[in-house]
């Protein structure tokens, strides 16, 4: 208690409260659930990218002992509605997305039939025994091919592969900007498709109480509340008879920010079979039937003056949506358009985004969703401009930064950046990296015939999603804080952390503000029976939006507590002083009231003022007025092996400004994880479909995610620029690492190759690709 009263928890690099149970194997994940009478589902998936289903013969599968049922789209689709897309766009052409395939399959991994059996082995035997007669149809597996005339159609009934065309223009007159330019810098960039690969794949357990007509669904998701909003319309169970639980979730990265077919299907099966049903995704199913990320290709043109002044930016992007729209599929590329100008004053922009269907799994929000794409392209462009104009790349960036006094800073893309000091982050990163020495080392390495490169990215991103008017289903957040009769504090949040550490950071905030030991605070989340309302966890919103709702609850509780304290002191509220968990009234009485006493009075309720309700609990909805805009500078130093094309990161410096840090250890962890994602993306990760639409990176044998020995020692720093958008001043940090790091590493590799005259390569920069590029210049 004394410690809690002398040192604030907020700002301390505390180890996470949730970690001991996770690292000792004591967490409960979806697959750990064992319900009485539970049966197991396995899903048969299409091996074809596009085919007509001529016949499905389930007789042999049904005859296997232990098989409960084998069902196809004809059996279940009418009862499961359509998989929802929450992003509404004008003129969006959208296919109907049933939970199992109808008479056609549209991608490898498309669910065709489901078998339910007494155990998962028998369920797998059953799907092996289903005989499907496919008639293969023409495949389009490449988005640029898909927009050419004569291309096979992903959905022939839509008549086109173009789902939508989205135009963004803002700021000044773009045509004039290009007329006035001394030079037009052009570049083409590809943001390859990525597979999120959370270590825990998806999984669902559904249990239906027929007597009550009530459904409980445990699902490995980031968004239990959004599922509770959207699932009733699919399966016909009313919202208030539906409980969604997100148990421990072993990684989301956006892949679990979705309503998936299996969530409706397995719920329906539990209702239909009157017994609990479990379905756990295999790694292979995860690779083929859980959303992918990125997959945008763009042509960019920048109008510049010879002194480097950027007058305008034009872009044309083709976004590969895959074959179906998942929850936010069409919206993700438009996020790229929102931060296209990065952290620069660019007076005019024009962007065209074409969303295209192909016979592949849907793309959707994956770590950073749209912002990594924007940051990669603007940061690559800044280097290309600097190189073409022979201007120092840092000078070029500094020249276009808004000054601290320019905030709130309205951009040409239509956003208002909340606060920032971009030059300060850049300066700090240069200091931490020992910039001048880096330049000398690079010169020495080059003189010795080595390929050495330095890459910089200065980024800004959109976090704390978001104002409800800008979000498909509300962007507010809900919270509840209750002091129990024992003076323990229960915090309930509507965000659904799955690695972000809010069980710790919210406890830190609450313990400080209420003045109790952190051990007395429990943070609950991820169960709609406990956290009735919420908009869940994505878009780096947990602490900035969810944390603010908690702060509002604390304020309400303290206000109410002071009323009772005043009553007990026999004085008025303005004579009550609350500090570090104790109530006093100097000058009125020497009596000191602590929480245990006050909590007891609230619940025993024998001595309350007439107009004061018993109990000490408050709930709040927080509606943010703007997004927040974290920013920073990342610097990567690489060596490229001339003979093997292997890239080695020899130094990595990141300075991130996410506002005041509740827990620097967690901030550091988030940044580290994000940079690791980028190392994968820049150097080896890619989801590959062949020309037949076959997914050839369907296992960890072929899909390369970074491992410990791929990660360099990071030098991490920060600057602190509070956001005016919320009372904590926090901005969010869940995606910053991967947004800042991708261009820094890519720029470093390109810088290393620059002396050879290599100006462009598509990600990932694999050894063979780098070697081929080097060879082509020999």
């Amino acid at each position, binding site marked *: 208690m004394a410690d809690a009263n002398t040192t604030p928890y907020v700002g301390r690099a505390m180890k996470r409260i949730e970690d001991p149970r996770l690292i000792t194997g004591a967490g409960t994940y979806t697959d750990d659930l064992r319900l009485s009478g539970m049966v197991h589902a396995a899903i048969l998936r299409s091996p074809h990218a596009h085919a007509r289903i001529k016949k499905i013969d389930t007789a042999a599968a049904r005859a296997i002992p232990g098989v409960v049922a084998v069902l196809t789209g004809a059996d279940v689709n009418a009862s499961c509605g359509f998989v929802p897309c929450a992003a509404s766009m004008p003129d969006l052409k959208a296919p109907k997305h049933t939970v199992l395939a109808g008479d056609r399959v549209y991608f490898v991994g498309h669910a065709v039939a489901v078998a339910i059996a007494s155990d998962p082995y028998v369920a797998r035997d059953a799907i092996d025994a289903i005989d499907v007669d496919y008639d293969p149809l023409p495949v389009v597996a490449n988005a640029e091919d898909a927009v050419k005339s004569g291309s096979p159609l992903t959905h022939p009934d839509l008549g086109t592969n173009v789902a939508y065309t989205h135009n963004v223009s803002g700021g000044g007159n773009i045509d004039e900007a290009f007329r006035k330019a001394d030079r037009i810098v052009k570049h083409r960039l590809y943001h390859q498709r990525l597979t999120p690969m959370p270590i825990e794949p998806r999984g669902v357990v559904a249990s239906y109480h027929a007597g009550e007509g009530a459904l409980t669904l445990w699902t490995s998701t980031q968004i239990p509340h959004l599922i509770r909003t959207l699932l009733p319309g699919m399966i016909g169970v009313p919202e208030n008879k539906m409980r969604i639980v997100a148990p421990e979730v072993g990684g989301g990265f956006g892949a679990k920010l979705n309503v998936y077919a299996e969530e409706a299907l397995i719920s329906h099966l539990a209702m239909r079979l009157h017994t609990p049903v479990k379905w756990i995704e295999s790694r*292979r199913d995860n690779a083929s039937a859980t959303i992918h990320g990125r997959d945008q290709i763009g042509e960019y043109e920048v109008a510049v003056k010879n002194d480097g002044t950027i007058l305008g930016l034009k872009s044309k992007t083709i976004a590969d949506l895959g074959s179906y729209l998942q929850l936010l599929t069409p919206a993700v590329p438009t996020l790229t358009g929102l931060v296209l100008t990065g952290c620069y004053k660019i007076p005019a922009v024009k962007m065209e985004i074409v969303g295209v269907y192909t016979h592949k799994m849907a793309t959707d929000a994956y770590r950073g969703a749209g912002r990594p794409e924007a940051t990669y392209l603007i940061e690559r462009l800044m280097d290309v401009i600097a190189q073409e104009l022979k201007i120092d790349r840092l000078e070029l960036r500094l020249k276009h930064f808004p000054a601290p006094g320019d905030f709130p800073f309205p951009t040409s893309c239509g956003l208002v950046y909340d606060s920032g000091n971009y030059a300060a982050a850049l300066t700090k990163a240069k200091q931490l990296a020992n910039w001048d020495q880096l330049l000398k080392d690079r010169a020495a390495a080059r003189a010795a015939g080595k390929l050495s490169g330095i890459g910089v990215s200065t980024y800004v991103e959109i976090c704390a999603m978001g104002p409800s008017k800008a979000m498909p289903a509300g962007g507010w957040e809900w919270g509840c804080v209750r002091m129990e009769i024992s003076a323990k504090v229960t915090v309930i949040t509507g965000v659904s952390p799955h690695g972000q550490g809010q069980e710790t950071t919210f406890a830190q905030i609450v313990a400080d503000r209420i003045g109790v030991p952190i051990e007395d605070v429990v943070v609950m989340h991820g169960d709609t029976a406990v956290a009735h309302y919420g908009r869940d966890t994505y878009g780096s919103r947990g602490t900035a939006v969810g944390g603010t709702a908690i702060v509002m609850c604390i304020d309400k509780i303290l206000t109410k507590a002071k009323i009772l304290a005043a009553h007990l002191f026999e004085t008025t509220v303005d004579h009550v002083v609350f500090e570090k968990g104790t109530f006093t009234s100097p000058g009125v009485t020497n009596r000191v009231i602590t929480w245990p006493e006050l909590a007891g009075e609230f619940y025993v309720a024998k001595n309350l003022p007439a107009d004061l309700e018993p109990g000490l609990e408050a709930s709040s909805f927080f509606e943010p007025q703007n997004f927040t805009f974290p920013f920073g500078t990342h610097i990567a130093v690489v060596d490229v092996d001339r003979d093997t094309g292997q890239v080695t990161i020899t130094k990595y410096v990141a300075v991130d400004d996410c506002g005041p840090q509740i827990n620097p250890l967690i901030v550091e962890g988030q940044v580290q994880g994000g940079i690791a994602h980028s190392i994968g993306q820049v150097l080896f990760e890619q989801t590959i479909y062949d020309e037949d639409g076959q997914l050839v990176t369907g296992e960890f*044998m072929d899909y390369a995610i970074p491992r410990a020995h791929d990660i360099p020692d990071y030098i991490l720093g920060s600057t602190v620029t509070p956001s005016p958008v919320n009372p904590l001043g926090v901005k969010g940090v869940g995606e910053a690492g991967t947004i800042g790091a991708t261009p820094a590493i890519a720029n470093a590799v390109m810088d290393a190759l620059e002396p050879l005259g290599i100006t462009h390569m598509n990600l990932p920069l694999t050894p063979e690709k780098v070697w081929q590029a080097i060879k082509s210049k020999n």
Partner: protein
Amino acid sequence: MYPANFDYVRPSTVEEAVRLLAKHGDDAKLLAGGHSLIPAMKLRLARPKVVVDIGRIAHLSYIREAGGAIAIGAMTTHADVQASKTLRDKSPLLAETASHIGDVQVRNKGTIGGSLVHADPAADYPASILALDAEIDVVGPRGTRTIKAVDFFVDLLQTAVAADEIVTEIRVPATAKTVAYVKTEQKASGFALAGAAVVIGPNGVRVGITGVAAKAYRAAGVEKALAGQKLTPDLIARASAQASAGVDPLGDIHASPSFRAHLAQVNTRRALEQAVRRS
């Protein structure tokens, strides 16, 4: 990831295991460390009817000196090979090679015998086994026989070990410190895109290459070019260019045939340079 049905038997002696293999024929598959077989079974690429677990047979995990050679029990894990002081002191190439295999979990479970018999074309050990000119003992219904390393790897995933035989021991000669294994890993799997193992001995140089072709091979052209010569950087560079001569390199999404062939040459050169530096 659920395998098809199978029966499980766990013999306690090599003789019993051999009898079980004879009895079940093609239906049986030996389970050693399980790091090739179990994933294949989970994918249902392998569907043995009977799994014969040799993990509890006593005295198949050891590393000891035997005459001028070092004998390694077939069930010795990669981690034990990596950590073996005997190997590090007397014949360090295998220990170095083992350190490149998979990750800690794989090294703690996977066994040298299992890896060799699986004969993945990109496994690490085969390059070193060839470069060391090792001997492999197998036991079967016809008794015990010894297979020379050059005869061991027959084709893709195929060795000279018959279906009814069990590898019991691998023997490698004592060597000087002038050995090296240099590998470019496939980033996803950790297997070798190309790995070169080199032993420089008093009677010449032996070079084993893995990852490049359907099976690991001795780089005869390199060995010949170096035979009886002083190993100058120039000669090493020229000889290494022969590292993929006469083989038909594999290609896949991770590396084209020409890149694999190129890496074989680069890694051979680097392994030779490293081995020379260790003298």
